[in-house]
């Protein structure tokens, strides 16, 4: 079983994000970059599959050179090898460019399962996995809160608004996993040491053969304005000295809901 896990390095989500008014991109300077916590669940799901079925897990990421740290983190969790797509020409890529770059980087290799988080914690569009599935001509099992692989098939419990659907696809397939699918393991010291010696292949635009189809040259959209949303008016904040519940009840009564 060959598993590919797609990961993204993002600015630490615990630090409030801001946009650069000039470039209109996320400010990444001065903010720690981390492996997207959502992707840790994708790595964990991939590792659980190969631990049961045998095989190897490849970790792939696209980003600036420092995205190597995110790959190393996933390798420390137990991934076998990595691919880092990095090229100045790919800066500011949109989702479709990213999907094209990943598809090009794995051309000629065969993976039974490609696992991604449902969406990045910073961008949240969640488009890349489905775009990747489309480019590769594979079925997509999305929003998995449970994943089982048997007899050349993947079966998931797919999140719905009021429960879940059991959905099945033949391998190879792309799967996106939600945060609830597993508890991601924490890399052990031994894993961290071993990760340093694992092979990570670096590829750029030249290697991908994507001139004009990815990165700046192929942007499908442009940000033209960023402005603060109308803020809610600050309300009244009180400290509970025994009257807190009564204040809340009074307020509910004022709103005529009780």
């Amino acid at each position, binding site marked *: 079983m060959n598993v590919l896990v797609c990961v993204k390095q993002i600015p630490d989500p615990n630090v409030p*994000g801001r946009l650069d008014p000039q470039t209109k991109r996320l400010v990444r300077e001065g903010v720690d970059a981390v492996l997207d916590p959502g992707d840790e669940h994708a790595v964990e799901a991939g590792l659980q599959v190969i631990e049961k079925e045998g095989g190897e897990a490849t970790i792939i990421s696209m980003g600036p050179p420092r995205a190597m740290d995110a790959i190393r983190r996933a390798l420390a969790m137990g991934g076998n090898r990595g691919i880092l797509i990095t090229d100045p020409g790919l800066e500011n890529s949109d989702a479709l460019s990213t999907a094209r770059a990943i598809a090009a980087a794995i051309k000629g290799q065969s993976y039974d399962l490609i696992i991604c988080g449902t969406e990045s914690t910073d961008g949240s569009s969640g*488009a890349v996995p489905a775009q990747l599935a489309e480019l590769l001509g594979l079925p997509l099992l999305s929003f998995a*809160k449970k994943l089982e692989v048997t007899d050349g098939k993947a079966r998931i419990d797919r*999140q719905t608004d009021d429960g879940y659907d059991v959905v099945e696809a033949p391998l190879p397939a792309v799967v996106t996993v939600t945060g609830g699918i597993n508890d991601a393991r924490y890399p052990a010291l031994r894993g961290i040491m071993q990760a340093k010696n694992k092979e990570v292949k670096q590829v750029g635009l030249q290697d991908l053969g994507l001139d004009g189809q990815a990165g700046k040259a192929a942007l499908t959209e442009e940000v033209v304005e960023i402005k*603060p949303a109308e803020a809610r008016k600050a309300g009244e*904040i*009180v400290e509970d000295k025994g009257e*807190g519940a009564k204040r809340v009840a009074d307020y509910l009564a004022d709103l005529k809901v009780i």
Partner: protein
Amino acid sequence: MAGIWVFAETVDGTPTPVVLELLTKARSLGEVTAVALGPSASKSVETLGKYGAKKVYVHEDPAFRDILATPAVDLLARLIEKGQPDLVIFGMTYDGRDVASRLSARLSTALIANASDVRKKDGGWAIVTPVFGGSLLVTTVPKAKAPTLVLIRPKAVAAEPAASATAPEVETLTDPVDTGKPVARVLRREKEKASGPKLEDASIIVSGGRGLGAPENFKMLDELAAELGAAVGASRAVVDAGWKPYSFQIGQTGKTVKPTVYIALGISGAMQHTVGMKGAKAIIAINKDPEAPIFKLADLGVIGDVHKIVLQLIQEVRSRKGK
């Protein structure tokens, strides 16, 4: 006039609530065509017309219900080639996102997700997307060839029937669905039990976060919700920790809600969460941390022990109702 298409998701022939919101927005932008797929989709035509669709494509093959995304993408790609719409609008739902994303790769078009608004601008489109929990609004213009695909968040637009509606022209399609390629097939559907009103429809929501301390403490939320006739929601932290199923989750990756009153209990107010609830008419927050960002949104904030206050509040509400 610009051609605006709406991907009209239906369940047993009834359009999902977000579809009516999409149609309301779409008819302000141009001539609206709806695409309704799956068994009994034809039953949705009247409602789609009432909300502004002038034309409806209907295809009732069960494959649209039973196979994820790909049959809809195949059909939409064919219809779009023929009909040349300027804009195709989807709801930011599980299926809407899968279909729109695949379609963007198929057609090499712009896809803008998480949108709250679409406007005309300089003969093209300007799409507004809230970021960082809705604190900033980003306006994006498409640069690829038409159509532009836009995923609009549920509850971003208030659904209103059109002032003058006519029965839409219906084109019933029967072209065969390609069953030759590998697909993701739905084997069965499971519903999780929930009592009381649905989160999306509730006028009062009582929502809990990590600050509740332990999963069993959600019981008192259930009790409070029962007294108030409210629905119970949860933050992502609580859902990821397995205290509550995902169907309770409110926020970026969960549901967007717009109740009259939102009562946030032990919820810190991470942007992930607030993007899904800041549209509430009134927000009440109870949290022991005076620095919790939720207090910046709250109309009434109480700093204190959430357990104690909730138990007192249940009594308080009971005694007032008794009067």
